[in-house]
C-alpha cells in the first residue's frame, strides 16, 4: 500500500493530536511492508546473478522508502539492520547456489561451461580434474568438505537467522551473531586450504591470486556484521511476535538513541563505527551485484561465445583440461547423473598432464582472450587437411 506523504508527515508531527498510538503503529507496519516488498524483489534479482543489475535499483528504492518513513517519525527497522540482514541473505544465497550446483548440477551444460570457466579464470580448484570424483564437480583437496558443511549447516542457518533478524527478533540477532562467527571460521579455514594447495588453485589459470581475491573479497560480510551485532543496543530486538514497533518504541522511550538523531540501536559512542560499517556494507552489496551481473557474460565472451556454441566451449575446455583432443562434451548428459546413475564425465580419463607429487601441479596452458576460438579453428583446419590428404584423388 502506498503511504501518502501527508500521512507520513502527520505521523511525524508533534502536534498531530488526532493520530493515536495504534494508528502510528499501523502506519509504521504498512510503511515497513511497502519498503520490504521492494527490498525483497531487489534481493531476489540480485541473487540471480545476471539480472542483479536490475535488482539493485529496486533494492535502493526500498531503502529510500525506509529512510523516508524513518525521517517521518514512523517506527521502522533501522537501515543498518536492513542492510546487514539482506546482505547476509544475498551472500549466503549466492554461495549456496554455486555450491549446490557444483554438487548436483555439475553435469549440466551451463555449469560445465560457466563454472569451469570461472575455475579457469580465477580458481583452478573448479577446473582441475573437474567431474572426476564420485560426487560433485570440483576436485580440489578439501573443497567438498567445505561445500557440505556450508550447504547443510552454515548457509541455511545464516539465511534463517537473517530473516528473523530482519523481523527484529531476539533469536535472529543471537543466531546471526553465531553464524557470522561461523563465517569467520569458514574464511580462516578456506583461505588456508587455498594457500596450502595453491599450485592446484593457481597454476595455469588466467588471473592467478588477484582474480580470486578481487572476486571473493566482496563476501567479507561477517567481518562487517560482527562489530555491529556486538555493539547494537539489543533492546531493539524482541521476543514479541509484533516485535518491530514494540521494540522500537521501547528504545525510543529508553532515550538511548532518541534526541541525538541516531537510528534505533545505535548509541552515541558507536555511531561513528556504525557509519563506517554501513559504507563497507554498501560497497560489498554493490560489488556482489556488479560481479554477479557481469562475470558470467564476460566469461562467455572470453571463452569464445557466440563464435563457439556453449557445447563447443564445453568440449574445448575438456580438451584443454585433459590434454586430449579426442574428448567431446557429452550433451545432454543422462538424467539423473552420477552418483545416482552412472559414472561422472571425467571418470577413467588418464590423459591429464600433471606434475605429480605431494602437491600436484597442473600442466595445462593458460588460455588468453578468445584463445579457444583459435585453438578450435586450427584443429578443424588441420583435421580437414589430414582428411583431404588421406582421401585419394579421382
Amino acid at each position, binding site marked *: 500500500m502506498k503511504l501518502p506523504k501527508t500521512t507520513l508527515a502527520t505521523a511525524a508531527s508533534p502536534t498531530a493530536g488526532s493520530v493515536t498510538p495504534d494508528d502510528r503503529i499501523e502506519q509504521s507496519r504498512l510503511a515497513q511492508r511497502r519498503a520490504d516488498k521492494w527490498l525483497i524483489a531487489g534481493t531476489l534479482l540480485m541473487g540471480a546473478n545476471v539480472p542483479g543489475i536490475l535488482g539493485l535499483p529496486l533494492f535502493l528504492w526500498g531503502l529510500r522508502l525506509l529512510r523516508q518513513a524513518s525521517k517521518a517519525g514512523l517506527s521502522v527497522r533501522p537501515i543498518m539492520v536492513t542492510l546487514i540482514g539482506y546482505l547476509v541473505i544475498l551472500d549466503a544465497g549466492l554461495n549456496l547456489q554455486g555450491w549446490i550446483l557444483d554438487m548436483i548440477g555439475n553435469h549440466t551444460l551451463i555449469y560445465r561451461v560457466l563454472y569451469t570457466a570461472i575455475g579457469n579464470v580465477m580458481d583452478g580448484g573448479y577446473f582441475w580434474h573437474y567431474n572426476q570424483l564420485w560426487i560433485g564437480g570440483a576436485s580440489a583437496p578439501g573443497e567438498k568438505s567445505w561445500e557440505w558443511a556450508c550447504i547443510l549447516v552454515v548457509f541455511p542457518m545464516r539465511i534463517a537467522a537473517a530473516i528473523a533478524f530482519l523481523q527484529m527478533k531476539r533469536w535472529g540477532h543471537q543466531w546471526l551473531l553465531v553464524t557470522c562467527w561461523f563465517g569467520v571460521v569458514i574464511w580462516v579455514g578456506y583461505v588456508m586450504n587455498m594457500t596450502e594447495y595453491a599450485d592446484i588453485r593457481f597454476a595455469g589459470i588466467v588471473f*592467478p591470486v588477484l582474480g580470486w581475491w578481487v572476486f571473493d573479497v566482496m563476501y567479507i560480510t561477517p567481518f562487517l556484521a560482527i*562489530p555491529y551485532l556486538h555493539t547494537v543496543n539489543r533492546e531493539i530486538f524482541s521476543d514479541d511476535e509484533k516485535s518491530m514497533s514494540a521494540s522500537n518504541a521501547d528504545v525510543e522511550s529508553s532515550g538511548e538513541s532518541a534526541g541525538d538523531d541516531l537510528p534505533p540501536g545505535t548509541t552515541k559512542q558507536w555511531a561513528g563505527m556504525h557509519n563506517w560499517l554501513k559504507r563497507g556494507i554498501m560497497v560489498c552489496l554493490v560489488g556482489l551485484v556488479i560481479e554477479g551481473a557481469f562475470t558470467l557474460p564476460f566469461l562467455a565472451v572470453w571463452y569464445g561465445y557466440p563464435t563457439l556454441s556453449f557445447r563447443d566451449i564445453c568440449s574445448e575446455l575438456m580438451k584443454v583440461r585433459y590434454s586430449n583432443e579426442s574428448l567431446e562434451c557429452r550433451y545432454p548428459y543422462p538424467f539423473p547423473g552420477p552418483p545416482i546413475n552412472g559414472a561422472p564425465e571425467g571418470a577413467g580419463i588418464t590423459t591429464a598432464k600433471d606434475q605429480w607429487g605431494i602437491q600436484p601441479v597442473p600442466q595445462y596452458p593458460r588460455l588468453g582472450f578468445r584463445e579457444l576460438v583459435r585453438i578450435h579453428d586450427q584443429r578443424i583446419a588441420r583435421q580437414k587437411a589430414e582428411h583431404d590428404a588421406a582421401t585419394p584423388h579421382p
Partner: protein
Amino acid sequence: MNERDRQRRRALIVFQIFIYGYLLLMFGIQLSMWATRNW
C-alpha cells in the same frame, strides 16, 4: 563510555587486526608463491 564498552572496543579492535591481518598474510604468501613459481 563505560568500562564494558571500553573492553568491547578493545576486543573488536583485536578481532579486526587479527582477521584482516590474517587475510593480508595469506594474500602475501600467495603473491610470493606467484612470484617464485611457474604459474
